[in-house]
């Protein structure tokens, strides 16, 4: 194989890291439904953009699938009831993974609530115009299920003078532990392709490429089987490397094009969607339903029943972990993957639309503790790891002396997407990514004050 690869290299980008994948725990486990939690918490701001506006009042009964909040603007999506039950309250202070408390709708589940979704109307996609399709995507409450939770319909409308030529469907799943996209590609291939065809029509894209890391070749062959001859959709294997699943990296790997600094993929005629988003759209849009559940990988050494669960949006993490058999000495819970995910401080945090995984660690696996931080030895390991060719070493030194503005003006801090490769390779254990998050937060605040 090694010699073969000399002639035909797998598609990839430069730099990046190779963390232990740990996917064997859940990769072979089929998606399983989870029972309803007795209390559902649906935060109104689960996505990037304006929070949703509640449509229900406390005491009102809701049916599974019914809209309970409408979009608060163009960059916003509606919310739907994940269970049949009664709205207990609209609580202003519900903990979130990020920390600050936000408003949320609390629904008490009826014991007889069924998994079947009765809400929704069949619609004929062929007869819908492009605008109507985009509206239908917004009405479904769909956001990027890969983790960013950016409203999907916004990406369908390129700004004036730009158009989308290529659709890239992200099935890389480069984060360790996570396998939900892998299972979706294997089990929901038809829905995935249906979703892609719908979105191709909505964007007018000429071709669609599904990029999958080459540790999931079973998914690649499964998808290729379903493709017709001379299909506008192709499926490509890319090198297994972190952060292959970052949209800019995947574009570079598949098309050998770079998104300009500070720009968006649409600037080079590309839109990137996650496979989970496409599969859900393929299921929801034909029946004009809303997003009420998603596949979440629950994994890590701290759970006895790891797996890929179909979880209703709004299920508290505590309930999810009980179902997955979390052990009593579990001591660290991360929503998302371990590289870019967020550690949560409270298990009352609900599963939101952007949560792709919950990784639970136990004490003995936590080798991070008491690792002393040493000064930068200027070895340059971070420069060789940074997928977007920044200079994390210099940025880190500037951050330690609080030169946040210089970081942004002279060293392209804004292009950093916090993948964590630099912190991962740093032999001095400098928390570089954390420094950059602070710098970005402070720059954002300074700008907000100035405006």
């Amino acid at each position, binding site marked *: 194989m090694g010699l073969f690869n000399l002639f035909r290299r797998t598609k990839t980008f430069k730099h990046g890291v190779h963390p232990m994948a740990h996917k064997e725990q859940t990769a072979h486990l089929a998606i399983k439904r989870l029972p309803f939690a007795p209390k559902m918490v649906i935060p109104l701001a689960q996505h990037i953009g304006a929070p949703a506006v509640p449509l229900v009042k406390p005491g009102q009964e809701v049916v599974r699938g019914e809209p309970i909040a409408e979009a608060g603007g163009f960059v916003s999506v509606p919310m739907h009831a994940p269970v049949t039950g009664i709205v207990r309250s609209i609580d202003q202070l519900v*903990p979130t*993974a990020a*920390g*600050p*408390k936000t408003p949320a709708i609390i629904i008490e589940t009826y014991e007889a609530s069924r998994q079947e979704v009765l809400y929704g109307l069949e619609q004929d996609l062929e007869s819908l115009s492009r605008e109507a399709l985009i509206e239908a995507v917004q009405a479904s409450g769909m956001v990027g299920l890969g983790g960013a939770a950016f409203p999907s319909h916004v990406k369908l409308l390129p700004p004036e003078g730009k158009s989308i030529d290529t659709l890239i469907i992200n099935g890389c799943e480069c984060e360790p532990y996570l396998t939900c996209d892998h299972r979706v590609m294997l089990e929901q291939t038809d829905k995935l392709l249906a979703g892609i065809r719908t979105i191709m029509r909505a964007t007018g894209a000429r071709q669609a490429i599904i990029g999958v890391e080459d540790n999931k070749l079973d998914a690649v062959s499964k998808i290729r089987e379903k493709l017709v001859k001379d299909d506008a959709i192709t499926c490509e294997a890319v090198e297994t490397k972190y952060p292959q699943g970052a949209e800019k990296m995947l574009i570079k790997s598949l098309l050998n094009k770079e998104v300009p600094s500070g720009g968006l993929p649409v600037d080079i005629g590309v839109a990137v969607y996650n496979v989970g988003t496409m599969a859900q759209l393929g299921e929801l849009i034909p029946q004009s339903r809303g997003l009420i559940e998603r596949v979440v990988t629950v994994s890590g050494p701290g759970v006895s029943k790891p797996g890929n669960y179909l979880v209703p949006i709004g299920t508290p993490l505590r309930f999810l972990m009980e179902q997955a058999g979390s052990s009593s000495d579990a001591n660290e819970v991360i929503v998302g993957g371990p590289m870019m995910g967020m550690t*949560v*401080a409270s298990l009352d945090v609900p599963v939101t639309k952007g949560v792709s995984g919950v990784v639970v660690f136990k004490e003995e696996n936590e080798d991070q*503790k008491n690792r002393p931080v040493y000064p930068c030895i200027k070895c340059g390991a971070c420069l060789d790891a940074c997928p977007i060719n920044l200079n994390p070493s210099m940025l880190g030194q500037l951050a330690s002396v609080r030169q946040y503005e210089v970081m942004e003006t002279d060293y392209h801090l804004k292009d950093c997407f916090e993948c964590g490769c630099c912190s991962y390779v740093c032999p001095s254990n400098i928390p570089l990514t*954390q420094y950059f998050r*602070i710098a970005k937060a402070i720059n954002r605040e300074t700008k907000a004050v100035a405006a």
Partner: protein
Amino acid sequence: MTDVTSIAISVGFMALLGSVLAMVLILANKRLFVYEDPRIDDVEDLLPRANCGACGSPGCRPFAEGLIVGTFQPAQCTVNSKEANKLIADYLGVDLGAENKRVARLACAGGSHVAFIRASYAGLNSCRAAALVSGGGKGCAWGCLGMGDCAVVCDFDAITMNKYGLPIVNEDRCTACNDCVEVCPKDLFELHSINEQLFVACKNLEKGEEAENECEVICTACERCAVDSPEGLITMQNNLAVIDYSKNDLASKVAIERCPTGAIVWFDKQGGYQVGKDAKKIIRKEMLPIG
């Protein structure tokens, strides 16, 4: 050409060049001269040159300029000694101005012996960093994280961290320069005149029992302080008592008397503070368990 002539030519040329350039400099000095009040330098010499910004100007030199124009009064420099400010006033022949000493106060009393920590944070030792990791792990999402970003940023050593992880402001040293206000990720510091003695040392927006589950010195929004005080002085906003300092003259110790948790306090002018009689007594000295 002999050696002597070549030397003479080069010396002559350099002399000529020198005088031409000198003329340019002389002309530039005359044409582009900017008059600057010599008193600015003298006044600046009398200022502490800490450039802290507490007076409201960006640094000591702009403050000196303001003093001469009359937009500032010498007493507004809170870092300088009274004698030095008097010297400036005498030198400029202006009024010293009324000193209004302002200090930074922390709107949180939840040290590790009274406020629950729900998750322990490991990583960069900075409040700002901890606040970005799920809020820092403290039960109260508004509370002080206690890693001392404010103590580090303070140029005057006015802030020290006590054993419960709360910053203590030394009011003699505090110049109200605003640095701690800006650095705190939870926006807990406020600048107050020392005449504003009534103060709510809490920012939690939860109510009643929910709030008390997180911290023992929390404002539970029981409204007793608002009811006891003259009307309008204290209002309840989002489950938190808020003092209207424009009515500061009405403030008295009545407001703190019935507070069940001691979240509203009365500062005396020496820098200490007292809580009401009904506030529960905290005798615990050790840290609360995490969880």
